[in-house]
Structures are given as C-alpha cells and as structure tokens.
C-alpha cells in the first residue's frame, strides 16, 4: 500500500511508517490490532481493528434457553465473569418482575465488588507492566489469587463462574466464607497501599502518565465512555449510585472522580475504587441478612412478551443488556449486550493521535479493555 508522503520543507521527502501492532503483540491485551501510522515515533493516526475474538455470543444466546445464557455471559468479560452474570440475571428478573431476596442481593453485591477488585488487580498489573514496572504485575496477581480462591470456595470455579441464577443464587455461601472475605479485606487494604507506594509518587510513573491521553468530560460523554475512563475526566457517573441495583442502595461509598482526564487520573480513580470496593464488601459482609437465596421463580422460565434494558456498573464501565422476549419461546428473541470495553475502545483513536509509540500501550492499558467483551 502506498502511503501518502508528508512534506517537511522542500529538501526531504519523508514517508509515514505504517506499523501493525497486534493482534499478536505482547501488550495489546489479547487480540486487539492497532494499525499505527508513524511520523518518526509520533503517531499520526491509528486504526483500531477488532473482531479477532468474535464468537457470536449474542446470536448464540438466541438459541439457548434463559438459564443456559448465564454461562455464555461468563465468556464475555472473562476477568469479571460474576459481574456479567449479575447483569444478565437482573435484566431477566426485571423482565419477569421477580423479587430477589435481600440475602441474595447482598451476596451479589459482595461478589460484584470482589470481582471489581480482581479485575482492577489485573488492570493495575498489566498497565504497570506496559509502562515497564513489572513487579506490580506479580504483586497484583498474588492478591487476585486470593479472590479466585474465595470464588472457588463459593461456586467451584476460578474464572468462568456461572455463579448466579435467575431469581437469586445457585447456592448459599459456605459456612465461614464471610469471615474469609473480611480477612481478605484486611490483607487487600495494605496491598493497595503497596501498589501505590511503587507507582503513585514514582517520578517515572508520573512522567509517563500525567498529561497523556487527555480527554475532557464532554468529549468522554460524546464518545460514549463509561466507568473509570469517564470518571477520570471528572464526570461523576456511577450506576451503583445513580440507578442502584443489587444492594448498593444500602451501602455507603464514594464515587472517586478525576479532574484532568489523563492517564494518571484514570489510574487514581481505579486505585481509589479498590478502597471503596473494600468498604462496600465490609459493609455487605457484616450485614448479610438471613433468609432465602432464591426468589419465587417459575419452574419454566419464559418471560412475558416485551423488551427491557438494564445496565450495571461493571469494573470497566456500563455493562448493559437489552433483551427482547416474544413471550412464546424459552429463548430470547433478541439478545444484545452493551459492553463497556467496546464503547471505551472507541476513545482509543482520539486518545493516541499525536502521542508517541510508547504512549499507545499506556493508553490501551488505561482504557482497560477485555477483548472477549469487545468482540463477544
């Protein structure tokens, strides 16, 4: 392919260098492909190519019954499977007007927040690794392991949990599990400080993240960003606060927002979310009410004809499900996901233009995309 020449004066003809980053590249976090057009080391323009992990989950779901879909949702954002489960089950519950018992809602809140911490652990590790600080990566994975152990004890799986049922939970929490969760909160609090010690005031980290990939609040809204990238730009939008689901209306927590909208602010927002999540987990675990774990659910799940959209705050942003039921069959007529990673990825091109190659990986990391969710 001929590339257009960029003229710097009459003396030299310089060509843009087209470089293909991904889908097999160590820091595109899966199979993202970015075609960069470089002027020296500066990115003139970039094309983001996705679709390498497309499995047709939305279409598949139209041929599965309502319960079977839960396990398909595991495979979207595979680092936050429980959150996906909760989002889907709540959407169906909304469609069927099922009342979920309070105990189940509390456990869902705990699992969602544990999942947020696990997902952020993975993010802080890989993001720091992309910028060259490799020790944080292993520290963060060490703590993520503790969360996976908790999940394993709860539902038997460590990655794709299938941990929810429409109307409640598949199983009650094992005896003593809540104590272990509280213990984990104790450990994790100090570990977050440890990550921050390595990064937050590190001069190199500051130079690599401050002022990189600035996006203003209105621009972020216009691009459809959500979650930490949106809050990093100073927009205090958090579905847990604005449209509470599960048991978030009974929890006290703050929504951290940034001001500059750069990579550093997005980093700070997520680091604070670690602490807020721990706060929520502590409250929810100490206040788990007694009672049933599943609401009144018909034996055959067949929602009435109609459509509904329900969104939750996944670790990466607004995770929404739009489901149409024809009221006759035992599978959805249309199943559509609004994945936060996909929408946040729209911002990548605008963010990396004008930055250097080294910043590209920092920015991919700061958006925290999971390709399983982007492509579905």
């Amino acid at each position, binding site marked *: 392919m001929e590339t257009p020449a960029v003229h710097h004066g009459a003396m030299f003809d310089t060509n843009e260098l087209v*470089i293909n980053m991904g889908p097999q590249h160590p820091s595109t976090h899966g199979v993202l492909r970015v075609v960069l057009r470089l002027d020296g080391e500066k990115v003139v323009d970039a094309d983001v190519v996705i679709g390498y992990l497309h499995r047709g989950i939305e279409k598949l779901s139209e041929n599965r019954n309502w319960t079977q879909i839960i396990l398909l949702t595991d495979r979207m954002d595979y680092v936050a499977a429980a959150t996906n489960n909760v989002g889907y089950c709540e959407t169906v519950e909304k469609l069927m007007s099922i009342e979920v018992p309070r105990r189940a809602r509390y456990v869902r809140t705990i699992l969602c927040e544990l999942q947020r911490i696990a997902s952020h652990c993975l993010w802080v590790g890989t993001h720091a690794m992309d910028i*060259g600080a*490799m020790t944080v990566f292993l*520290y963060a994975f060490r703590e993520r392991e503790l969360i996976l152990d908790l999940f394993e004890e709860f539902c038997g799986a460590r990655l794709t949990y299938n941990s929810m049922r429409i109307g409640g939970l598949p199983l009650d929490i094992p005896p003593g599990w809540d104590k272990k969760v509280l213990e984990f909160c104790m450990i994790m609090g100090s570990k977050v400080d440890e990550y921050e010690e390595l990064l937050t005031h590190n001069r*190199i*980290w500051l*130079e*690599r993240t401050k002022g990189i990939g600035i996006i203003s609040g209105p621009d972020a809204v216009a691009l459809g960003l959500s979650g930490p990238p949106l809050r990093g730009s100073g927009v205090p939008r958090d579905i847990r606060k604005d449209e509470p689901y599960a048991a978030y209306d009974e929890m006290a927590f703050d929504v951290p927002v940034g001001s500059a909208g750069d990579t550093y602010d997005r980093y700070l927002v997520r680091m604070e979310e670690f602490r807020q999540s721990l706060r929520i987990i502590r409250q929810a675990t100490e206040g788990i009410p007694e009672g049933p774990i599943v609401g009144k659910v018909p034996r055959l799940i067949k929602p009435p004809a109609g459509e509904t959209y329900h969104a939750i705050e996944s670790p990466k942003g607004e995770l929404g499900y739009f489901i149409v039921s024809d009221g006759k069959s035992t599978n959805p007529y249309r199943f559509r996901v609004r994945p936060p990673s996909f929408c946040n990825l729209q911002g990548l091109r605008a963010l990396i233009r004008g930055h250097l190659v*080294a910043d590209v*990986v920092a920015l991919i990391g700061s958006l925290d995309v999971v390709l399983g969710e982007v492509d579905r």
Partner: protein
Amino acid sequence: MIDQFVIPLLKIVVVLNATLLGVTYMVLLERKVIAWAQSRLGPMRVGPYGILQPIADAVKLVIKEDITPVRADKWVFTAAPIISMVPALIVYAVIPFGPTIHLFGRPVSLYIADVNVGLLYIVSVASVGVYGIILAGYASNSKYPLLASLRASAQLISYEVAVTLTLVSVILMARSLSMVSIVNAQYNAGVWFAFVQPVAFVIFFIGGLAETNRAPFDLPEAEQELTGGFHTEYSGMRFALFFLAEYANMIVVSSVATTLFFGGWLRPFPNVAALHVLDVIPSWMWFLIKSFVFLYIFIWVRATLPRYRYDQLMRIGWKLLIPLAIANLVVTGIVKVLIA
C-alpha cells in the same frame, strides 16, 4: 618467554572464561533476584535451587533453529551479534582485578594489560558495540527492529557523551588514563573518588544504566512497545549473543565504576593500618564484591522502576546529565588549579 606469552595467555583464558561464566550466571542472578523481589522463587527445576539453569539455557539456545529472515541482509545480519559481543569481551583486557601479586615465586599482575590510555581504550572499544545494534536493526529488514535500533543508537550516543565527560573529571583527579594508576591514585589520596566526585559518580551510574540498555532506560528492547526491539528477528545462539553482550556490558560498567570511583581492588580505608584485619579478604575478592554490589543495584532498579519514554530519555541525557557533567568537569578543573 613465560612472562611474555604463557602468563598473558593464561590470564586471557581465565578472564575470558570467568567473564562468560559470570555473564551466564548474571542471567540466573537476575532471574532469581527479580523473582525474590516479586515474591516468587525463580528457576528451581534445573539442579538444586536452579543453579544449573544457565547450562540448560545455553544448551537450549545452541540447539534451537537459527533463523535468518528471507529478506534480511544476510552478511550484516550474521555480523551484527558478533560486533556487539566482541567489544564487550575485549574491554576486560584493561580492567585491573587486583594489584601485582606473587604466585609460585613469580610476580603476576591481576590484569591482562596496563595500557597508559586504558580508559580511552574502554570508551572507544565499548562504543563499537553500538554498531552491532544499529546493524541488527537495519539488517533485519523489519519495522520494529528498525525503530528500536534507531532508538538505541540515539540513546547510546547521547549517554556516551555524559559518561565520557564524567570520566574526564576522574582523569583530572588521578592525572592518568591508566586504570591501574587510577586505583593507585585513590590509594595515595586515601579516599575513594566516589566521595570526591559524587556528581560524576551519579552521572556515570545513570549513564551506565542507559548505555547498557537497562531499566529504566531499556527502550531499545522494550518488549511491551517494540516486541523485543532490535533482536526481534534473531533466534537461537545469535539472539543469545546479544543477550550475553548486554550482561557483559553490565559487568564492564560495574567494573569500571568500581575501579574509578570505589578504589578497585583496595579494601575500605586502605591507608588505615588498624584495619589490616580486612586484608584476609584478597584484593581481587574486594574487587568482585564491589562489582557485585553494582550488578545487584542494576537488577534491583529493574525490578522496581517503570520505563522512561524515548523523548524523556533524550531530555534527561542532553538537558540534565550532559550540562551537569560539563559543570562538574569545570568545577573540578578550577579546584584542581586552585589547590595546585
């Protein structure tokens, strides 16, 4: 006959082998130390506590397929790893591991050669290694290595300036370019030059990190950005040569830092007779211990710090280190003249 040929040859054999062994074990040390920093165990399978890992690595690399990309410039592609490895090894010719000692009733100096322009020799030979990296990037005929080799050459050349300027300050102190004389000058002065020239030492060490492509200046091989940098297209033993060259250069920088700033083979407080008890550790051991501390710091830095960006690296080099080095040199010169 024996003094002229046999002993120097023996010394070359010993130094070369010790260096190569040291280099391979540096790799293991790095893996182990980083693993401990990251609360892991590191290599544990080959031999007790993984101490035979370098041998396994070497065997693996030797028997691996040696790929030359079809569109690569074959001769240059083959020559590049050699050009980077050889200078890294021949620098050891002038590094003094110890003073002249008596072995079997014969005086043996613990260095291969005491050249009167030793420091100049080190600087000039070490800079030849840059060509290996430039040529590797060019000959691979691939975009990522090309970008990396451009980065590398810019980085190495600009940090070379800062490092060499700090060396001049040391030369002013020692009034000699010979490595042995520099150590002796520190003995006579009764103080390690690191305490007289702290600025020069800091600049030298930072520059040393950059010149050996080590974190936080490991841009030319930033695997997160450039998928491995200039050796992306290399495999097998040729890749290993680049790898060994990097570690050999680390040892060179540590040895030079030890010699110039920390008294080389001298024990701490060499003029204080009360500390004679320290002489139970032989002089070459002191040299190794000091160098080892530097190598450890190299690894420690890598485990701790993120990586600088290319433009930031150049800014630090040209706008901070080089002016500082020049200022340090001028001040050293003025003070020298005033004292004299």
